[in-house]
């Protein structure tokens, strides 16, 4: 006697409890607090905020704790929460020239107004495992300089722009309101504002790999890191009842301006072009990958031949979102009995007919005599 599988609901509820126990781990080890995650896993928090499209360090820390450190799962948790939030308004465009810099480097000029600021970076740490961190230690005291950094530092691209050496960046004709991809579906062809929005929410690993591919010849890219800056930017809104901008807080951002060669065309003299990357928090790898991909996606606009994956907007933009990708790849875990049965039935029929043509009465593994047949 055969009984169909039942009890899905109790199995699901049991899986919740198993998961909670696995997440907590050994109860003799003290439980992580959100403050610890936020303070000591801050780069993980930054990534979750960026790809989760919600700037909230506490919620991102909570998501990371709930996801046991799985970043894509944490991003998913934050996104699903974000959907339910009311939208009060849109901010005034931020001005990264007003950023309170904690790091600012240029690979194109040795020195420049505002100076090079190395800041907190893993770049020159030599990547030796620091075994002293295996034990808790006293908090280090950060070095300080006596002279504060200037309140505003011009962007390298602005310096080049004064000379006309780099393309000017102007709003599109009529300065149309940008698409809000969290409210409207992505449509093709997508303008640059929409593409950048998509990339900003995109998976860091994916943008890194695509950006990397452009350096290895899969797109005509000759980038210089014109400037990377990281620090705090004030966020302003204009409440309808006031009619002027007020600051509602500040957010940490990493901005990357890539400078790329451009041979010029019949209308445009040779000049440098831009690739742009911007990410929440300290996300240098992400913003650099994003800037490379942004530049590659401008191929059509700049009249360059489209030969490589990173230049194909529909390919790139349709696959950036790791919440979508993770869901669809993993939906293969769901039952597909019905479709599989249909394929099995077809395959048996095809094998039976090819065997008939070939070896005559050879037995075909997996085929039951007259189990099924298709009627015309």
């Amino acid at each position, binding site marked *: *006697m*055969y*009984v*169909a*599988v*039942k*009890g*899905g*609901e109790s*199995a*699901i509820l049991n899986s919740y409890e198993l998961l909670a126990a696995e997440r907590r781990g050994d109860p003799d080890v003290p439980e992580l607090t959100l403050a610890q995650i936020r303070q000591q896993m801050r780069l993980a928090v930054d990534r979750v905020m960026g790809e989760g499209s919600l700037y909230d360090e506490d919620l991102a820390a909570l998501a990371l704790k709930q996801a046991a450190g799985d970043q894509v799962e944490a991003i*998913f948790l934050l*996104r*699903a929460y*974000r*959907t*339910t939030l*009311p939208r009060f308004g849109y901010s005034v465009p931020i001005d990264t020239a007003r950023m309170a810099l904690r790091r600012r480097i240029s690979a194109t000029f040795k020195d420049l107004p505002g100076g090079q600021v190395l800041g907190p970076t893993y770049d020159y740490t030599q990547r030796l495992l620091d075994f002293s961190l295996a034990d808790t230690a006293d908090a280090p005291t950060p070095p300080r300089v006596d002279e504060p950094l200037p309140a505003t530092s011009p962007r390298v691209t602005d310096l080049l722009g004064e000379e006309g050496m780099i393309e000017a960046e102007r709003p599109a004709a009529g300065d149309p309101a940008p698409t809000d991809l*969290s*409210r*409207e*579906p*992505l*449509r*093709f*062809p997508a303008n640059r504002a929409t593409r950048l929005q998509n990339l900003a929410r995109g998976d860091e690993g994916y943008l890194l790999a695509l950006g990397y591919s452009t350096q290895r010849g899969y797109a005509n890219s000759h980038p210089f890191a014109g400037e990377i800056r990281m620090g705090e930017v004030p966020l302003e809104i204009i409440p309808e009842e006031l009619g002027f901008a007020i600051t509602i807080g500040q957010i940490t951002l990493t901005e990357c301006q890539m400078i790329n060669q451009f041979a010029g065309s019949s209308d445009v003299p040779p000049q440098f072009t831009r690739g742009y990357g911007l990410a929440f928090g300290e996300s240098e790898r992400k913003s650099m990958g994003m800037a490379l991909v942004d530049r590659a996606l401008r191929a059509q606009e700049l009249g360059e031949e489209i030969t490589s994956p990173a230049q194909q907007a*529909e*390919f790139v933009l349709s696959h950036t979102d790791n*919440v*979508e990708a*993770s*869901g*669809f*790849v*993993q*939906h293969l875990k*769901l*039952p*597909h*009995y*019905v*479709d599989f*049965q*249909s*394929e*099995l*039935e*077809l395959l048996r029929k*095809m094998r039976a*007919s090819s065997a008939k043509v070939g070896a005559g009465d050879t037995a075909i593994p997996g085929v*039951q005599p*007259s*189990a*099924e*047949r*298709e*009627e*015309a």
Partner: protein
Amino acid sequence: MNALPGYNFAYLDEQTKRMIRRALLKAVAIPGYQVPFGSREMPLPYGWGTGGIQVTASILGQEDVLKVIDQGSDDTTNAVNIRRFFNRTAGMATTDRTEEASIIQTRHRIPEKPLNENQILVFQVPLPEPMTRLEPREAVTRKLHALADYGLMHVKLYEDIARYGHIATTYDYPVLVNGRYLMAPSPIPKFDNPKLHMSPALQLFGAGREKRVYAIPPWTRVESLDFEDHPFSIQRWQQPCALCDAEDSFLDEVVLDGGGRMFVCSDSDYCQTRQAAGHTGSENTPTEVSA
């Protein structure tokens, strides 16, 4: 009603539901046409029914009775999970019985019992574009739909016949809706395609990840693509269901502990209703019938 505190009825806020209903109205007005909509991030993963869930959430009222099936069964974990989601967020009645449901959300099947004009069938759709495997660029497929240029699909089906002697598509078999739009019926087996045709029930399709909805209004012509000399045909089994003896249902193959195989209805409600009515198959006797 005991909906989840802190969340709106059926999870989505009313403005979002209205936006989705507007898209659905357009979809009903243009049968088979894919309408883009502002698909939201749902608390269930993309690819697991987020489109169907958003459609269901936006049409669901407190008086509705919901049935959720996956692979024809109410008991598969994904169906259980989606039913639980609506139980938690909307607190409305649910059922396993096809005839009791006012809304049926489904993945990969259409119930065997004929539907009526008071019912809405909501399909979960992974890939709404029927030509996506032939032409992945949406900018191109949109143009082909606008021109009703479906040669690409006909050539694919023709090449199947040239290579294998028959059309080698067994599920998500392309259909032409109301003589105009080529449509992916979602990965239902082609066995279910005839049920799409002139259905008294409204049929809605939601693709969350791809951000599209489409519809087949009641009593609409739905033809499965074929050729005059290779007419469309559906799967048939030589033996009936081993549990309820049905000869007209889609059968799942089950591998038994001893290594043998048996074939049973994929539609669990259909099978159980028949068993309760006294039908028995080769694998059970009246005393062993379990509900």
